[in-house]
């Protein structure tokens, strides 16, 4: 899409509050991508809301000069769903971590995908709980032994966010890397523009508890193929995924669920009719 210059610069979407994140943390790149995306879309700051749970990544709303809600751990999606359905005029983004989104928040993730409300959900996936000092998350590899609650590794299958999103019915599915803020911004723009529930997994290194993830930027590579709108094809691709390809994987065609409050047809008096005792 084209960039119009009358719009706000990316920086103008920042609140000025300095992030508490560790220098090197991928979340800085994500923050920058979001501001670029908002700028390119020319959205007014007051018509955007960013909703998050709890975690390092979930601190992001405070760093943006838009409406924000830093909620409780795991509940960003239903909160955003309530907001978006009540206020369909707003652009609502949801942002958080892999623990927040896939562990404690996993049920809402599935059900948000199913419900297909017009939200854009950005997960900063670092395969670890950063904020609580380095425990395994659902996306952690089974043999990562440094997790303090899982000495010897979790020994269990990692959670596959894109697969679950697809299986649950998300309408837009993409993977990005925080090391490419511009590419990520472009994907976020598409995600916001695509109707319905859009899910963007962003590989975002935790340099403190997973320093080896600094290497991710050398591992990621663009997806070899174009996005598909066929779930079966998307599924096949994901099952051969090396977990590092980036780009838009799936573009669904489902209409978003918009139980938009209609203009009031009746007054309350009309609702009360049913209670009145018939006077015979």
């Amino acid at each position, binding site marked *: 899409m084209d960039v119009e210059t009358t719009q706000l610069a990316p920086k103008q979407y920042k*609140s000025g*509050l300095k992030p508490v994140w560790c220098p090197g943390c991928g979340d800085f790149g994500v923050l920058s991508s979001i501001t670029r995306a908002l700028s390119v879309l020319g959205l*007014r*700051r*007051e*018509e955007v*809301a960013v*909703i998050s749970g709890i975690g390092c990544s979930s*601190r992001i*709303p*405070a760093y943006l*000069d*838009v*409406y*924000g*809600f*830093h*909620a*409780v751990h*795991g*509940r960003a999606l*239903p*909160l*955003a*769903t*309530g*907001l*978006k*359905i*009540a*206020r369909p*005029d*707003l652009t609502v983004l949801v942002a958080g971590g892999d623990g927040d989104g896939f562990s404690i928040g996993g*049920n*809402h993730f599935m*059900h948000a995908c199913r419900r297909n409300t017009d939200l854009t959900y950005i997960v900063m996936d670092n395969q670890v709980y950063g904020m609580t000092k380095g425990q395994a998350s659902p996306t952690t590899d089974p043999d990562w032994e440094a997790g303090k609650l899982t000495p010897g590794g979790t020994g269990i299958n990692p959670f596959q966010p894109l697969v679950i999103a697809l299986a649950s019915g998300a309408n837009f599915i993409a993977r990005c890397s925080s090391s490419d803020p511009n590419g990520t911004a472009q994907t976020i723009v598409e995600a916001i523009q695509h109707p319905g529930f859009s899910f963007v997994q962003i590989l975002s290194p935790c340099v403190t508890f997973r320093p080896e993830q600094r290497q991710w930027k050398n591992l990621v590579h663009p997806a070899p193929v174009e996005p598909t709108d066929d779930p079966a094809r998307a599924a096949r691709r994901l099952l051969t995924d090396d977990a590092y390809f980036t780009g838009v994987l799936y573009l669904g065609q489902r209409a978003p669920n918009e*139980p*938009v*409050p*209609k*203009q*009031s*047809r*009746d*007054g*309350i008096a*009309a*609702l*009360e009719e049913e*209670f*009145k*005792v*018939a*006077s*015979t």
Partner: protein
Amino acid sequence: MTRQLRQSVSIIIAGSGGSGVMSTGTMLLDAAARAGWYGLMTRSYGPQIRGGEAMAMIRLAARPVECPADRDDVLLALDWRNIERFLPEVALSADSLIVSDPKAGDVPEAIEALNANQQQIPMTRLAKEIPGGRTNMVALGVLATLVGIPPALMVAAATQGLQKRGSKAVEAGLAGLGAGLDAAAQLPGLAGLTPPVAPADAGNERWSITGNEAAACGAVHGGIRYAAGYPITPATEILEWLASALPRVGGVLVQAEDELASVTQIIGASFGGVPALTATSGPGLALMTESIGLAVAAEVPIVVVDVMRGGPSTGIPTRSEQTDLNIAIHGLHGDAPHLVLAPLSVADCLFTTQWAVHLAESLQTPAIVLSDQFLGQTRVIADRPVSVEFKTGRNTVSGVNGEYNRYALTDSSVSPMAIPGLAGGQYTADGLEHSERGVPSTSACDHTAQLDKRLGKLEQYDYGDDWAEIEGEGSTAIVTWGSTTGAIREALEQSGDWQSKIRLIAIRLLAPARPQHLAAALEGVERILVVEQSHSGQFHEYLRARYDLPGEVKSFSQSGGATLRPDTLRDEIGSWSR
């Protein structure tokens, strides 16, 4: 048939699944309402989902009633299956009339043992004589005659009740009804009801409504336009009513995946400026407390209606109990002051819920409304419930110059709220402790300031006179809350000079506590009876914790299961040695 008239008549209809117990009760209630009487109907079921034994308790009266009567006057058994299950719930006596069908077989021993007036009417046989006839319609006719309902009104009510089943059903039904009206002539004179004081058409509107419907209607009056919920007995009807009503007034109800989602959805909607509510029962409330705490900290108004049932855990979902008081007041972690209110009657579910919305919106905090299974699922015929036009509401910002401090310390401790869409009002609502600006802070100063603010706004607010209903005077006070109010009120009304000797204080606003107001209301009181439906005396403990109770204090608390009847209270007070 000459008969002595009475103020109130209480009828039990019992039978097994498919016998039409509930529809019989409903039509009877409807006919009585048309005749200008007041009344109520409660229901009780066996454990089966379908086909189980069922019991309808209908009480009709010439004045408003809010609880079961002391005694049940009539038991009409469509059959005797599992009747013993219900006996602990009913109050039959030697003065009761037992009507049954000879085809139903031997009258059970427990019923025989009452030594009551037993009458048999071959209802099934009479029904069989009518093509498509049903026993319950014959029974309805019998009951209408017993109560003294004008046949024309009974016919009208029955016609409407059967309408959705088609004209054939109406025809057969009316024939059965007629047979019943006739058959009742064989019965000995039962005291029928005194004619109503003011008939329904005398300009004062009457409603037929359950507490759950009333709460839902009050929510809409209060401005609720977004609801989210997850079904749970006995709260589901609130959600169901809103599901179809809200779209008609520009709102919406969303069925959520669980209670964690329903409560956070409404926080989101309310953050977006749309007043929002959910309804649940104890187990669901337990799942919501973390996020209710978020609404406290982030200062987002929401309303949670908890229709209480027997606890703990899954407990007894179909029975009433007042045992979520503790969790409603104290169930949030940290210091999390918020509003807790309780309706004092079925009809009051409307006003109290509406007021709860108003207070939550005005004070930017969650309000929990504690209804219960009795209030929620009892249908009453009552005067049109009160609803009030509140002039004020949520304090919102209309324009911002310079920096906007979402959590600014103000005189009222309520900070004007920016609603998304307002330019310059951007802020981040936060459950982390924060500064006035809304920036996360670990400073003890900010912490204390915001704790003071969140408590202060609740404490300073002028709640007016609605915090409690106070009746009567004298040196003995009965202090209660919620659904037990009805039985106490009746106990006092019926007992000669008690209204001048005993005051009733029924608290509607449970939190924040209003110690000065209660102190004023207790002026001159020497002894207090605290009445509630719980095993552990939660209300009594709460009163001790937050109020100074003068004189001798006695706690009357009885766990859920059976509904409180006025005479139990009368006995309790009567036996309190002076």
